[in-house]
């Protein structure tokens, strides 16, 4: 049997967040609340001797489905505050009445049935579930595989945006760059030295002078760059030590 405290905890952490579905203004809040509901349900599954299902609930629902929801929310507008004013007359009251009616209906039906004592629990771990899943119901599993493939393809098809212009090849990009008179080559990267490979040190040109463009403008604006001279001097002393002649490249 399940302890009452456990049950009521599960009840609270599923029902209260799900109410945000009705009352929250921002969609992200709603998504977060639903994640909490999913976790609560996973706990419930484990409490009901279905650990396999509980883990699958976390992995699939919380991990995949809700993340999908969040991604799409990001895409379509995460900032939208929805006004809770109802536009269709009567919708609110009839909907509430119907929801309460459905709950009452279901509860009344279930409460009328006389159930015997719950049978001895069989833990629904992977070892116990596997023979059933791949034995009796293997066809269903295979069909579900097809279903998932179809869903994936369907998502691709539905969101496919036909190309309006032909893709710009690299040749075109380069030609446009030269025609505009810009530097055909990329900018130099920041300097990489033996003692320092952060992005704030400039690179050295063949004369040994630092190249100002190689450090990000942002760092320069923030005065977070280091002077390249020290690396230039250090470079020279190092080279003398190693026996390089003066003036050697």
């Amino acid at each position, binding site marked *: 049997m399940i302890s009452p405290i456990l049950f009521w905890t599960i009840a609270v952490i599923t029902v209260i967040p799900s109410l945000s579905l009705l009352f929250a203004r921002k969609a992200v809040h709603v998504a977060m609340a639903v994640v909490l509901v999913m976790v609560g349900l996973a706990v419930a599954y484990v409490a009901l001797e279905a650990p396999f299902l509980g883990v699958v609930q976390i992995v699939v629902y919380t991990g995949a489905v809700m993340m999908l929801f969040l991604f799409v929310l990001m895409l379509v507008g995460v900032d939208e505050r929805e006004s809770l004013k109802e536009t*269709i007359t009567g*919708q609110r009251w*009839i*909907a509430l009445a*119907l929801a309460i*009616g459905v709950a009452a*209906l279901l509860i009344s*039906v279930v409460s009328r049935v006389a159930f015997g004592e719950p049978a001895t629990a069989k833990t629904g771990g992977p070892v116990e579930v596997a023979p059933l899943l791949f034995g009796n119901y293997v066809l269903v599993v295979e069909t579900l595989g097809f279903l998932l493939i179809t869903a994936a393809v369907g998502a691709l098809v539905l969101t496919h945006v036909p190309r309006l212009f032909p893709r710009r090849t690299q040749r075109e990009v380069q030609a446009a760059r030269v025609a505009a008179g810009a530097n055909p080559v990329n900018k130099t990267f920041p300097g990489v030295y033996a003692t320092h490979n952060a992005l704030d040190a400039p690179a050295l040109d063949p004369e040994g002078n630092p190249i100002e463009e190689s450090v990000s403008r942002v760092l320069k604006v923030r005065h977070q760059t280091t002077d390249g001279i020290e690396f230039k001097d250090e470079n020279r002393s190092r080279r003398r030590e190693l026996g390089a002649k003066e003036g050697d490249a």
Partner: protein
Amino acid sequence: MLSVSWLLIALPLVSFFGLMLAGRRADAWGHWAGVGVSGATAVIGIIAFFEMVGRSASDRSESVRLFTWFSGGEFKLDAGLLLDPLSLTFVLLITVVGTLIHVYSVAYMAHDPRRRMFFAYLNLFIGAMLLLVTADSYLLLFVGWEGVGLASYLLIGFWNHKPEYATAANKAFVVNRVGDIGLILAMGLMFAHFGSVSFVDVFAASDGASVAVLTAIGLMLLLAAAGKSAQFPLQSWLGDAMAGPTPVSALIHAATMVTAGVYLIVRSGVIYDGAPDARLVVAIVGALTLVIGAIIGSAKDDIKKALAASTMSQIGYMMLAAGLGPIGYAFAIFHLVTHGFFKAGMFLGAGSVMHGMNDQVDMRRFGALRSAMAITWITFGFGWLAILGVPPFSGYWSKDKIIEAAFVGEGWQPWVFGLTALIGAGITAFYMSRLFFMTFHGKARWTDEQHPHESSLLMTVPMMILAAGSALLGAIMGVGNRFQNWLEPVTGTHGHEEPVLSVPVLTTLTLVLVAAGVALAYWMYLRKPVPIEPPTGSLATIAARNDLFQDSVNRAVFQVPGTHLARTLVYADAAIVDGAVNKQATGVAMFGEASRRFQSGRVRSYALLMMLGFVVIAAILVMGG
């Protein structure tokens, strides 16, 4: 011969189709073919008659089954012929008189380009009429009934290039149709209550049937007979039917078709035996028509219309006789046969007069024709004497017996019917003598172009034969009650009952009234000159000239309300029936408009509706289950 008696019907019908389809190339000999076919039927009829005479009285009924006609569900009917004394009497009358009139028509219609079609229609008529009188079921009789109606329409409107003639044909057909409703209803009643419409079954079943049913059937049959025989109240078409050529008037509207109603009543005697009230109505109708015809005939100046009114009146006598019950049946048929001969003879004579007077029909323009057309005068005279009932001419034998039978009975009936018949005989004598004197005697009142001459042999010989029949047939049939005995198997025996006034008294009274009528006509139309323009006359004369306003009555009582009813029904059909359908469509459209509001296009409203539906259904399932 009796077993092949279906030839009687088949031959004329084949001839009808043949003459119709043969086209112009048959114009040279078509009329002779028609005459030949009619003669053949006469020969067959006579042979069949002698065959039947040769049998003993109890054996005189031959049923010839032709083919299975209807056999489906509850209604089974075989088409067959019933040959018994009654039907053979009619067969003889139709074929003999018909053949004579065929011969007459060869000369009468000699100048008509459509003579071939005339004979085709005449043959059609003969075939249909023979079918009518030999049928063994009411339905087959009805086929013949309709056939003669069709032939009558075609023949009345033969000269339909004149619109009033075509209208007359329409009128005849429509009024007949009203009567046909009676026959159809009667057949329906028979089928509903007796399960069959053949004579055998109906007469057997009418023994145990209720009086109400039999009375209803009897009244419906009377309606049919009144339509076909031009009895009150369906008598308005007979006068207009004179628009047809005179042979048509002679054959159809004097001798045969108009007697079909009497045949129907007499054949259905068994039904009337069980419905005395219906029988009384038959007698009343006959008596009424008798008087109406006589009054109208007294004022008509058109010779054919006067003869038509006379026909109406004489058939009234026959109806009256048939309405008196078994004692009158035989006399009704007797008078029918004699009337057929003398009336047809008089019509042919009128045709001969018209032929000689350039198709003039106004009797005020005749006069002193007896010297110019002697044979016509003599043959017409025989007919005149016969219809007056002067012994020993045939009319005396038949009409006097009817007057005697009318005076039989108890209470008011014998007095009313008998006196009506008696006085009718007097009026008949008056107007027939008026006709005869105006036409053949007195001063000549001809117009300048008219040169009356006697007609050719082809016309006079039939007239002579018919005149001989008018003279002798009555005696041949009446002596020793020969005709009654011949008809007994059909009409049933009857005891001889005494009339309320004794027979010698009646005979004397009749002759006195007849003489008075002749004398009155003599004084009015022979002694005094006949004015060429009809004088204004009394109210009664005006009414009689206008057919007792029968057309105005029909118009006011039937046509105008009928038209209003039809218009109301059309309006009701458009407004109510169509309106209901249209309103339904509009309702559906309005419902659609209202339901449209649900399609708001908003997803959340749809979701709400789905949820609502789910909760409602689930609740019902939970509560109910």
